[in-house]
């Protein structure tokens, strides 16, 4: 019996990402250098963007005796692990394929978010730092870097960069030249792939110059009128400055002053903590710059936005870029632009006739005059925004919300901070906005109102509002919120009767 061991390489990727091509390159290179090599995979339906793996065992030839290679990787027995994405790298760690005694882990730190992460109603992303920490802790050696950035810079796929890194690491009994030759012999996008290979190789073989650290963007430190620093703590004041800038752009300096006055009113209440003021500064600015038709028109004509389009479009010199906006205003958006009396009367008609769901799909080409001029007119009309039905409705909501925050002070500052934060639920357009308003009303009636009446202690009050906000962000149907509210209510009535 011999004690020779094969080198075992596991590649974690997502279907359609080129993991199979990467495994193919390694196989070709190993064959060309006369090694024994075996490769397996489980493509199947996982090819369609799901998580998948490729597994290779290889061994230098010594005589004609053919080795018996395993078809499956074994936990604790993987020498090199390549991962094309951070979460997939950690998935391999979780499955035991990355161990401190032997595994050289090379992975890209960029994220391709899972459906669970990206469809969450607020922020469902897994903390990348936590993932990197797990990967680094269990690898014998770890090299984690944003390879997708390197690939983009070289106009190639990430798999070529990863192969280059593998070559640079010297972790396989295959020469870097051999791996590069496999790419060169690949036949498809060879030039771009070789660029990517060389970039990856340079990083891990220590030939690459250190990457420049991006300089922080200079902040505008010039003093502004009506500095919120006079009456707000540092972080709240910073947010308030952003708010002032936004609202001046949104409407005018007067409107921004109204914002500061409202903040000052809260700040002057006893018990107004940093959290209360930060949350209020943030959400008051957002609620006061609600996204109405005028605002959308204004934003869509921004030049900075068009620069972004150009960058995204990756057009070549000489290409013409057309932008078509998908808009579909409903009755609220359209009649909301009218005065409260006229708009209110028309909305009444809409409701009586059951036309709430009627809307007007439009595709506006803002790069053509016909589309541009319509948005231009709408954007100009924003000057009379403060006389519209929508504004009256928003103002009423803001007034109610601010009253609630104020009323919770000074007795329940934590609850006040949570009430301020609950404004997060109210955002967006159409059905999303209606859902947000509905959810807030529900929390307001079930928890905030009794809380202000002293129905339960301040800590319960604050916790209830927070739990309700999180529940409202669990599912769009509102069932988590419904469950939370009834559980909260029955817990309170039990306490009362006890």
């Amino acid at each position, binding site marked *: 019996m011999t004690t020779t061991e094969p080198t075992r390489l596991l590649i974690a990727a997502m279907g359609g990402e080129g993991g199979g091509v990467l495994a193919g390159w390694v196989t070709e290179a190993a064959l060309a250098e006369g090694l024994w090599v075996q490769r397996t995979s489980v493509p199947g339906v996982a090819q369609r963007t799901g998580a998948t793996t490729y597994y290779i065992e290889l061994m230098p030839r010594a005589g004609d005796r053919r080795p018996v290679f395993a078809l499956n990787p074994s*936990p604790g027995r993987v020498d090199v692990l390549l991962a094309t994405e951070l979460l997939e790298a950690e998935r391999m760690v979780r499955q035991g394929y990355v161990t401190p005694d032997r595994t050289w882990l090379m992975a890209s730190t960029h994220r391709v978010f899972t*459906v669970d992460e*990206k469809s969450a109603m607020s922020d469902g992303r897994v903390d990348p730092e936590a993932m990197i920490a797990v990967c680094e802790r269990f690898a014998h050696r770890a090299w984690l870097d944003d390879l997708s950035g390197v690939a983009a810079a070289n106009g190639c796929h990430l798999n070529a960069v990863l192969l280059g890194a593998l070559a640079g690491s010297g972790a396989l009994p295959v020469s870097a030249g051999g791996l590069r030759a496999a790419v060169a012999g690949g036949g498809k996008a060879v030039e771009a792939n070789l660029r990517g290979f060389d970039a990856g190789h340079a990083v891990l073989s220590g030939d690459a110059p250190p990457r420049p650290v991006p300089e922080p963007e200079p902040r505008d430190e010039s003093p502004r009128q009506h500095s919120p620093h006079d009456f707000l703590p540092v972080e709240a004041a910073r947010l308030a400055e952003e708010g002032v800038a936004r609202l001046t752009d949104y409407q005018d300096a007067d409107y921004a002053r109204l914002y500061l006055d409202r903040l000052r009113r809260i700040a002057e209440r006893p018990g107004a903590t940093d959290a209360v003021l930060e949350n209020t500064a943030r959400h008051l600015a957002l609620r006061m710059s609600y996204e109405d038709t005028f605002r*959308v028109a204004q934003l869509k004509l921004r030049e900075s936005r068009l620069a972004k*389009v150009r960058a995204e479009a990756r057009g070549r010199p000489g*290409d013409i870029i057309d*932008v078509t906006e998908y808009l579909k205003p409903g009755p609220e958006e359209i009649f909301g632009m009218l005065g409260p009396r006229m708009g209110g009367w028309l909305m009444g008609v809409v409701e009586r006739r059951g036309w709430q769901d009627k809307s007007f799909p439009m595709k506006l080409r803002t790069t053509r005059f016909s589309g541009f001029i319509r948005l231009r007119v709408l954007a100009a009309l924003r000057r009379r925004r403060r006389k519209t039905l929508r504004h009256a409705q928003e103002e009423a909501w803001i007034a109610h919300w601010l009253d609630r925050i104020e009323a919770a002070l000074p007795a329940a500052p934590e609850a006040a901070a949570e009430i301020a934060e609950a404004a997060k639920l109210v955002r967006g357009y159409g059905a999303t906005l209606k859902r947000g308003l509905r959810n807030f009303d529900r929390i307001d009636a079930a928890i905030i109102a009794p809380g202000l009446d002293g129905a339960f202690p301040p800590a319960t009050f604050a916790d209830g509002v927070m739990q309700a906000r999180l529940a409202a962000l669990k599912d769009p149907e509102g069932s988590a919120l419904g469950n939370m509210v009834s559980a909260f209510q029955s817990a309170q009535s039990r306490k009362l009767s006890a």
Partner: protein
Amino acid sequence: MEVSFHKEIGNLKLGQGDTFRGEGILAVTKALLQSGVSYVGGYQGAPVSHLLDVLVQSEDILDELGIHLETCTNEAAAAAMLAASINYPMRGCVTWKSIVGTNVAADALSNLASAGVQGGALIVVGEDYGEGASVIQERTHAYALKSSIWLTDPRPDLSNIVRMVEKSFELSEASATPVMMELRIRACHVFGDFDAKDNLAAAHSSRHKLAEPATFDYARLSHPPATFGQEQDKITRRTPAAQKFIVENGLNEHFGPETREIGIITQGGLFNNLNARLIDAGLSDAFGNVTVPTLVLNVTHPLAPRQIEEFARGKKAVLVLEEGAPEYIEQAVGQILRRADIQTKLHGKDILPEAGEYTARVLGQGLSEFLARYGWPADGLTGWLDQVDQTAQQVADAADHALPPRPPTFCTGCPERPVFSAMKLVREELGPVHVSADIGCHALATFPPFSQGNSILGYGMSLASSAAVSGTQARRPISIMGDGGFWHNGLLTGVASSVFNADDEVLIVMNNGYSSATGIQDLPSSAGGGAGRGKQLDMAATLKDMGVKWVRRVNNYKVSDVFKTLKEAQTTKEKGLKVILADGECQLARQRRIRPQVARASAAGERVVRTRFWVDEETCTGDHSCIRLSGCPSLTVKPTTDPLRTDPVAHVNNDCVGCGLCGEVSHAAQLCPSFAQIDIIENPGRWDRLRRRLSETLMRLFGGGAAAPAVQPAE
């Protein structure tokens, strides 16, 4: 077709003295050619799709060898094809994915096995079991047992797989019985090499046709009274002949010393992974020099009793390594030992789990327990197991965040996604309905963000599985089926039956033009042309001829139209089956076709419009409703640059193929004004440039100024 087999086709032409390098399933294809087959057929399905795919692209080889190739409409058709070997001394092979394909083929298989064959008949099944499997977890072994079909499970080394293909034909002929070869997923995809032989042309083939049909022979019919004799023949003649052949030709392999106090009997397919654990235990090496007697069953049915007896005799215990439930081999071994009155202790699923894949850890644990019971030191193996458990514990302690799963999803721009978006919108309006799902890419709608489907009963079975629901539910059930499922089975078991019984229900047929989930093979309704095998069979006409009165066609990407049509189907007073043909070409196939065309046109200076979508992050409020209605891989999130917001905003990445779903959904669902379509006009014409200049001038007049994205300046 998804894969081009240019290189592999070259491999199929290799001869004596050449080395074949490639995947396991293509090695099987090559072995068929080396075995002188007259005909090949089957139905695509992972992991055996490539067997047929490569042959479809190898017209010259088929022509030269006179092989008749049939891409069957389902597995029953494929199995029935083997009837040619009942009457004629012709070798034939069919293939499909098992267990599901074998289920579909079962009727023909029983009849075939009863009649018996003259020419070697081989069925190559992809045993879709364990990691990466997409079907119910059952064993093909059951079919082999009940129909008396021989079952091989070759040790996954390409030379051995090829030898077993060649020997299977001989075994089939020696025992007048069809042979099934079971290949696990990884064995199909394993890349290795073997020494090739010359291809062999069959005596009877499409080049050398039989002048006359077989003479009438009642005994070859699976019809009474012949069936009674055939049942006897299986037991008295065919089985012993097979057992004799298996032993005499050394189909099963004995590794390690002849006698030791313990031994292992393993399915051939598990040998390599067993060896990895034996290495850990210090009982083998990288070359498979095992020091425990090991009987590798390349043939798992029938067993040769003498061989088992000889192996077990004198040993204290044997371990049967057999994946999946029930433990047929262990039962058979037990019966052999009992009848021979051999007192060797038998282990198998008493120390290994009864169900589930034999992963490295599971196999290691079972082996370690077996060795320990008989006093064999296996410190290396137990050390490894301890280390695996310890690492697992440490990882669990260190990683306190949940790791979301990443199931497969519809590809970027998939034409099936918009239909499910529309279904979700209809559900919001009309309330939930019972949904019968089916096999195919559309089954991915069972995963988030769509998470729908009440049952999956088999390929093309969705409509049939709605039958009793349709009569007992207030709202009409919806059945989803692909064009693949439609031609495979759905047309008869579903549509004909529904019309016949006047069921009131809705069927959506995803007409994407191919059998996409299995690797984009052509279907009877595929467009054909070029190298395609499609015959443009018209589904709408077929449905109408079958008596379906309500048939609508929708363009899937027009979500509002799909929404309206679905709503109409759900609410119309018209009774009976309502079929919506949802048209949209498989985007994977489409991109593969048009990308090179577009690149060529663009390089040649022709006017080309490239479209993609874009999210305006200034108006996106980070609610992600759009993602919950789409789940497109290119519609994702990115950090917001808005200092006042914290939630990530929606973002369309550069993989976008411009299918337009995001825009359509934002319209249909009245979501938000954040979606914009970007059209990049490459090599614009004179009219494009003039119109642009005109617009710019006008816009500047009205304060637009630099606002218009002008012709990009030359860099």
